């Protein structure tokens, strides 16, 4: 929160001038602010929204289960999962693609969001747990007699949603403040973010931490009063995920096309130069970093009700690095690319783990090696290359 206000403050000091000049018809040679989306992109987006928004409820609720057009529970889970990954990839692209911070710890924010909503889902089980207690099963198992203080209030969905935003935000802000302030950057920062998520994973594996230890949270029964496995509920969650993905994309696009976004890009391209120009990169970095973490947390919160489980494995360093490869495959700094990348890589993962489980790691490893070597700008770079070639010929 502080980051937003302070960055606005710095922005007012450093970036307001050109805007006022533009109003008085006096340009400083700054390119005009690009449109949020081109006309064609808007049309495509609206078409997608209509097709998805109407198609999914139709295919799950109306089409009979025997029909080939019926969207099975499995297909819905997969789609929902991929969209959550896409939101996370978008969040990572915001910091990596636009601010040059390669975070290898975003799985932590993803999992924190998941745990926040998971607390609500555990409370919503009520007396239907194995032990029929008010407390979540794992607490009964640990012989705890009352909820730890940080579980207070989590029975309210609204409060849990607030936690989904606040917890990753606070963690990211504090961590970011200390690392950015001491100007840790590049690979060092990546390593430290990785260590952060590793440490958190170890912490969450402990039973005493109060988040279910190894097993995490599972066996959810209902969300917001609706049974969680009911097709109607699932469809609603899927549509919400879709909506969040679209909004996140538009929001991220709004950030990167804004003046603040230009400064952030400048941090990526030449932080020292930017400092010589009188900007303090700290606030900009913190802002983007925190927004990205929150977005990632929201993705995690949407992920958990759909897959029905959250455990500390979700914040393993390996998961964080996989997120980075979604972005790299799709194309850094394009926003749309990471979404494509998340779908492509995870689609391949589902295919491989179902058909050739032992070769998946080879394939993933090869993507990691070959994409930076051969496709430095990812799929989006490839598309751009091809369109340019077509235009030339």
């Amino acid at each position, binding site marked *: 929160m502080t980051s937003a206000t302070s960055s606005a403050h710095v922005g007012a000091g450093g970036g307001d001038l050109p805007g006022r000049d533009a109003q008085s018809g006096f340009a400083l040679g700054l390119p005009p602010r690009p449109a949020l989306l081109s006309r064609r992109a808007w049309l495509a987006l609206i078409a997608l929204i209509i097709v998805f928004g109407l198609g999914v409820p139709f295919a799950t609720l109306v089409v009979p289960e025997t029909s080939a057009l019926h969207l099975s529970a499995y297909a819905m889970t997969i789609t929902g999962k991929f969209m959550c990954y896409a939101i996370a990839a978008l969040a990572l692209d915001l910091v990596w693609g636009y601010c040059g911070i*390669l975070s*290898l710890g975003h799985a932590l924010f993803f999992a924190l969001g998941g745990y926040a909503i998971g607390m609500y889902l555990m409370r919503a089980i009520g007396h239907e747990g194995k032990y029929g207690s008010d407390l979540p099963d794992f607490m009964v198992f640990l012989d705890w007699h009352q909820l730890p203080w940080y579980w207070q209030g989590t029975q309210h969905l609204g409060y849990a949603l607030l936690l989904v935003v606040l917890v990753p935000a606070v963690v990211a802000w504090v961590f970011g403040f200390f690392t950015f302030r*001491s100007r840790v950057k590049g*690979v060092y920062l990546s390593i430290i973010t990785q260590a952060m998520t590793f440490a958190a994973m170890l*912490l969450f594996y402990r039973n005493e931490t109060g988040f279910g230890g190894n097993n995490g949270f599972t066996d959810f029964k209902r969300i917001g009063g609706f049974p969680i496995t009911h097709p109607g509920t699932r469809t609603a969650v899927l549509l919400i995920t879709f909506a969040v993905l679209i909004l996140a994309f538009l929001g991220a696009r709004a950030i990167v096309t804004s003046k603040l976004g230009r400064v952030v890009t400048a941090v990526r391209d030449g932080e020292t130069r930017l400092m010589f120009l009188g900007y303090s990169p700290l606030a900009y970095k913190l802002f983007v970093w925190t927004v990205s973490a929150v977005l990632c947390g929201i993705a995690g919160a949407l992920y958990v009700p759909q897959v029905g489980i959250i455990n500390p494995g979700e914040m393993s360093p390996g998961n964080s690095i996989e997120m*980075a*490869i979604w972005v790299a495959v799709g194309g850094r700094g394009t926003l749309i690319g990471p979404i494509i990348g998340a779908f492509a890589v995870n689609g391949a993962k589902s295919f491989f783990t179902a058909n050739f489980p032992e070769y998946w790691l080879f394939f*993933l490893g090869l993507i990691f090696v070959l994409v930076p070597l051969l496709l430095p700008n990812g799929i989006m770079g490839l598309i751009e290359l091809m369109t340019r070639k077509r235009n030339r010929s």
Partner: protein
Amino acid sequence: MALVLFAGAPLAAFALSPADVAPLAGDDFDAKSAAIDKLIANHDKESMAVLKALSDDSALATDSGAVLLQDGDTAKDAVTGKTVAAGDAQPVTLNNLLRSKVAGALSGLQLDSPDRATREAAITSLLQNPDPSIKPLVDAARAKETDPALKKRLDTLWAMTALHDTDPAKRLEAVQLVAARHDLDMNELLRPLVAKKPDGTFVEADDRVRAAAQSGIDELDAIQRRSQIAGTLFAGLSLGSVLLLAALGLAITYGLIGVINMAHGEFLMIGAYATYVVQNLFQRFAPGAFDWYPLLAVPASFAAAGLVGIVLERLVLKHLYGRPLETLLTTFGVSLILIQATRMLFGAQNVQVVNPAWMSGGVTVLPNLILPYNRLAILAFSLIVVGIAWAVLTKTRLGLFVRAVTQNRRMAACVGVKTARVDSYAFAFGAGIAGLGGCALSQIGNVGPDLGQSYIIDSFMAVVLGGVGQLAGTVIGGFGLGLVSKAIEPFWGAVLAKIAVLVLIVLFIQKRPQGMFALKGRSAEA
């Protein structure tokens, strides 16, 4: 005691009276205990026979209170020695306390054996479990013992049994002897002497005895503290030496090429598996020389990891210089491939690497501190490796080039250093050192495909802590990290210690950002 002996005397042939053994047939364990004490005090042939029978469960009790000694199919009355029918006699039941008492008594009875080895064995077993009831036996043995070494140990044994003697002078002597043993187990014997009864008076009435016990306890506590500190120190150094081996190569390659190699942990793994292969070859072809397999395993692990390193550098990393973040991802991919390949070659299970005989066991430094030879060997090994790395970097032509390129790549290239080749060699060297680390790790831990993963983050932290490009920094970083982790562990546990170390490192960066992170020379950024 004399009374018992006296009472037994009229029976002449049979020293036992029915009243002596009757409690054994009963259900009251306190009474049984007293009866056993009596048997021990008697220490004649018949009593011994009863004790022996008790210890091997061949003592039977009849309803009338007689005790029978079973011998195969026949049974003899313990008191009269007559053969009787076992009838409905039930085995005498003993609890654990009584069992150890009987066992102690039997050892005690061996104290007057003419054979020195038997006596020594008896003393050793009694020292572990001294029961005051054997005091008469020890008294007798002490008077007779002539061997000075055994006599000394008997004194200790006597002291342990005499702590509750009725004579304060004897108690004092006993306490002093017990305290002089400097054995931490003696704490248990001394503590009750300084305790208070519920009514506020001391259990031990004599001031001098109490003072002696207290000073004995204090001394033992001091020993315990010392050995705990020494133990923590050693554990920290041992962890540090492993981290050092892992971090050394990392620091060299990072300083030189600016590449954080996420596959570095897998070079450790390759080194460990190379050791495993060499060990298997020795087992197969030269079992006689098995103890010397590390001599071959060390160069083999260096070569294997170095080879993979140079291939990786030539094929992949060379094309990514100047793009550190992507290199990070690429090397992570390489690590995935290496792990999966190892899994398919050697199986997903851990493999067994056996210590050579000279590395198993340990040296006892303090009563409760044993330093295992394998950890000592690794500590020494890591210092040797640091020495070699230092020599290579400062005394050889390659080292000169490596330092030159690290300081200023362009300038080095201008004066004719083939920087690309230096990169390759240095990378291979760093990977080889990691391989050596793997060889060392195989001697103290599990060897499995995931071996590298568990050390990689810690060794990064060691590099971060120590700074880049300086050997001394890495040494301090490695040992510092090891010591700090092990120092925190006893208080907070391993997990919280890890988290605390991370927080400490982040805070440390606040204090010394430039000193630790600035690359000298070519680090000026765009």
